[in-house]
């Protein structure tokens, strides 16, 4: 859970209820407000630009539109039932009850720990936004916009909110002691697995992998990547849910993870292909950040060095494997970068949490080995639940709205076909 030591997920879930006994801390409140803004900035415009630069110019608007519309739509679902399903009183540890539907009972004075519950709601909402926005990378350049909206609306309800509840809302994984500080499983595995499943169900873009489909604007991608890096400080250090030493340490290890992920990917390309590329170094950054995310509240700087390297190397190899060997068109490599990074980070958290390896300590009576077992359970459960539900949803939706545009429309480009606009009128 997000707090490294004694505070369990259950207490977090109960915070609003026991809030009256705690006083508001203006420092914590200020940091949580700031973190919330940073995490929204990751999606809009960070991720939108990152993805927009990677697609071909005729689809640049379509991915921006997808990220933007997801942000707005998920916000509405969050108010109606999302917050409650994720953080409401637990129903058997599997999902939150509907007691907080329509944010009932949340007023000016409602507290979540030492800061207003409204801030907690907003902070968690930005996570619920970026997760399906990450998924968009897997289906880029060929999925119908309407089908994508229907899928994401159903997916957050059936996949994201329950998994967030299992891990952060006092659910069964939290009870097991599963350690996912800022979303290795909740965010990165769910987004990556959904992207991979959707890429398989939709099929490859026409021409993949024989036709050249290079990114149309790498400086745009780098701009977005840099926003992600900065925004990630809110993502990970904000997940400490306080302005304290844990937040500071989370920011430090996050930065180290990003740096090492970048350098490792660059080195891999240099050795294997002879030249270090800009796209490579920024992809390594995302890989390093995704990998350090679940570990960021539990490990120290030395652990972060190793985790960053493992993330860069593991995600690099996974990307080559998916793209070149399996020839699956997970268009912007969401699975190999996010899901693989998240899994590596979750597994290494078991070891690098230990004080002997510079970590902030495992729970009492828990060994690295038993923690590792819990991490595996969490990964497998998240993976299987997400894959099965994503697959079923896509099949059902395809019977109502075709998931894919026609091949003629695909060639013409989604910007004109679906949105009647073009990104560049030079």
């Amino acid at each position: 859970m997000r707090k490294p030591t004694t505070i369990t997920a259950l207490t977090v879930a109960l915070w609003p209820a026991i809030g009256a006994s705690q006083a508001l801390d203006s420092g914590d409140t200020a940091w949580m407000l700031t973190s919330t803004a940073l995490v929204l900035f990751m999606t809009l415009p960070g991720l939108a630009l990152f993805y927009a630069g990677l697609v071909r110019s005729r689809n640049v608007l379509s991915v921006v539109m997808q990220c933007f519309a997801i942000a707005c739509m998920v916000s509405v679902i969050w108010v109606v039932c999302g917050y409650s399903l994720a953080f409401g009183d637990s129903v058997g540890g599997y999902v939150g009850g509907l007691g907080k539907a329509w944010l009932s009972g949340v007023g000016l004075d409602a507290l979540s720990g030492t800061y207003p519950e409204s801030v907690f709601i907003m902070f968690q909402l930005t996570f619920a936004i970026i997760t399906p926005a990450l998924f968009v990378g897997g289906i880029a350049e060929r999925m119908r916009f309407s089908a994508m909206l229907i899928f994401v609306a159903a997916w957050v309800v059936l996949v994201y909110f329950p998994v967030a509840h299992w891990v952060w809302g006092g659910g069964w994984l939290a009870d097991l002691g599963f350690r996912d500080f800022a979303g290795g499983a909740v965010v990165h595995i769910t987004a990556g697995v959904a992207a991979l499943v959707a890429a398989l169900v939709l099929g490859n873009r026409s021409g993949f992998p024989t036709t050249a489909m290079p990114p149309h604007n790498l400086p745009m991608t780098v701009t977005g990547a840099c926003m992600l890096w900065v925004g990630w400080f809110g993502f990970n250090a904000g997940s400490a849910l306080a302005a304290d030493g844990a937040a500071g340490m989370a920011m430090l290890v996050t930065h180290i993870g990003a740096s090492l992920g970048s350098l490792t990917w660059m080195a891999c390309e240099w050795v294997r292909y002879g030249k270090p590329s800009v796209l490579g170094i920024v992809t390594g950054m995302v890989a390093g950040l995704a990998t350090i995310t679940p570990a960021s509240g539990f490990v120290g700087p030395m652990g972060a060095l190793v985790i960053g390297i493992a993330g860069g190397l593991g995600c690099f190899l996974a990307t080559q494997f998916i793209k070149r060997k399996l020839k699956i068109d997970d268009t912007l490599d969401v699975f190999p970068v996010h899901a693989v990074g998240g899994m590596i980070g979750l597994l290494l958290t078991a070891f690098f949490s230990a004080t002997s390896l510079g970590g902030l300590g495992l729970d009492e009576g828990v060994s690295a080995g038993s923690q590792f077992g819990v991490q595996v359970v969490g990964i497998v459960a998240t993976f299987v639940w997400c894959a099965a539900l994503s697959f079923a949803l896509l099949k059902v939706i395809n019977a109502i709205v075709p998931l894919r545009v026609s091949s003629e429309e695909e060639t013409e480009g989604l910007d004109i076909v679906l949105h009647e606009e073009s990104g560049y009128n030079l």
Partner: protein
Amino acid sequence: MKLITAVIKPFRLDDVRNALAEVGVQGMTVTEVKGFGRQRGHTELYRGAEYVVDFLPKVKVEVALSEDLAERAIEAIVDSARTGKVGDGKIFVTELTEVYRIRTGETGDQAI
């Protein structure tokens, strides 16, 4: 009259322009183009996905000339555009049947 169409390496354009000016050429049209000849394309790698780029960027220079200037102009282009490596480009020479200057209505050599 001749129309000379030279496809050259982009970075030689300034030298070609100066060399043509020296032999007395007073105008030209320049276009950025892509194509291939004996020079092979190159590969680009994006996250390990390899793409062969067949068409390389070149610059196309078009010059209309009187008969007496054509030979020296071609020589000037060859000398200034040559690097000695594959991909230096080509010069195409075609007969030009008529030229009009739009502003005055002049024709032939007078209009060049």
